[in-house]
């Protein structure tokens, strides 16, 4: 028996309709129900094969929950379903507008100098600014993804979604750096 049929999405794993917007209560309920059903103590306790399968299903279920619970990972996942995994190297195919890169670099330089001069106020002011931008960028990405779900062949919309999510990635990196967890493996 296969773990999942080909073409199964994480939305299917939770039995939720695929889309940008997910009903949070429904997601929680679906996750709870399925977790209980899959509990290793219940499913084929004595059969090692069944047991392993049940563990794999649980892992998949947890992955689905983790990915779809919050809007951001959900948006990245939807883009991945449209053939572009921004967290992978193929993301190189996404060209980021120079204006965005300039903005990113400028913000990082401002952060660096605020850090060096120990200006904590400036650090948090910059972070607040990026947090606001981050929310706007997420909305833009979601709007593009909604359109992409309706018209999956529309390359221009796919690029629009990819660029917004790439920008969001930069916002995140900025916030990580501002919180002091920079220089980790990326």
């Amino acid at each position, binding site marked *: 028996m296969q773990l999942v049929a080909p073409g199964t999405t994480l939305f299917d794993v939770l039995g939720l309709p695929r889309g940008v917007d997910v009903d949070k209560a429904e997601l929680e309920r679906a996750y709870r129900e399925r977790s209980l059903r899959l509990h290793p103590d219940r499913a084929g306790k004595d059969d090692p094969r069944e047991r392993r399968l049940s563990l794999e299903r649980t892992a998949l279920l947890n992955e689905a929950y983790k990915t779809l619970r919050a809007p951001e990972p959900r948006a990245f996942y939807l883009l991945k379903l449209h053939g572009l995994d*921004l*967290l*992978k*190297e193929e*993301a*190189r195919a*996404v060209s*980021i507008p*120079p204006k*965005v*890169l*300039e903005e*990113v*670099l400028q913000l*990082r*330089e401002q952060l660096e100098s605020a850090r060096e001069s120990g200006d904590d106020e400036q650090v948090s002011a910059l972070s607040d600014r990026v947090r606001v931008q981050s929310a706007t960028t997420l909305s833009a990405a979601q709007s593009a993804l909604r359109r992409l779900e309706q018209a999956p062949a529309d390359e221009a919309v796919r690029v629009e979604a990819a660029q917004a*999510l*790439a920008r969001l*990635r*930069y916002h*995140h*990196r900025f916030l990580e*750096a501002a919180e002091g967890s920079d*220089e*980790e*493996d*990326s």
Partner: protein
Amino acid sequence: MAYSDKVVDHYENPRNVGTLDKSDPNVGTGLVGAPACGDVMRLQLRISDEGVIQDAKFKTFGCGSAIASSSLVTEWVKGKTVDEATTITNKEIAKELSLPPVKIHCSVLAEDAIKAAVADFKKKRAERQGAAKATAT
């Protein structure tokens, strides 16, 4: 993950960090980014009218391998012609720094940065020549 000695050396003592005057007609600026890791890299080259790279500066926000890759190329391109510089491949960079497969994209970024900086310089030069021609006629 363990970085190679060369990466650590460039990371701890990065060469040629800084900026060149963007408005200088002989300065080409390359700005590239990798959304997968959220890295951003700026490479600037000062190129003589004969097409020789006289100076190089960089600023990179990213992991150690991205910083080392850009630091290394600033050393490599100095004294080279623009045509020679654009033949530098990410493979050479990755080999020199012993980058592991997961960090290859950092060397790709550095290669792209050289190409972008040279393209910016050439564009500026073409515009300048176009403007000169326009005034001459």
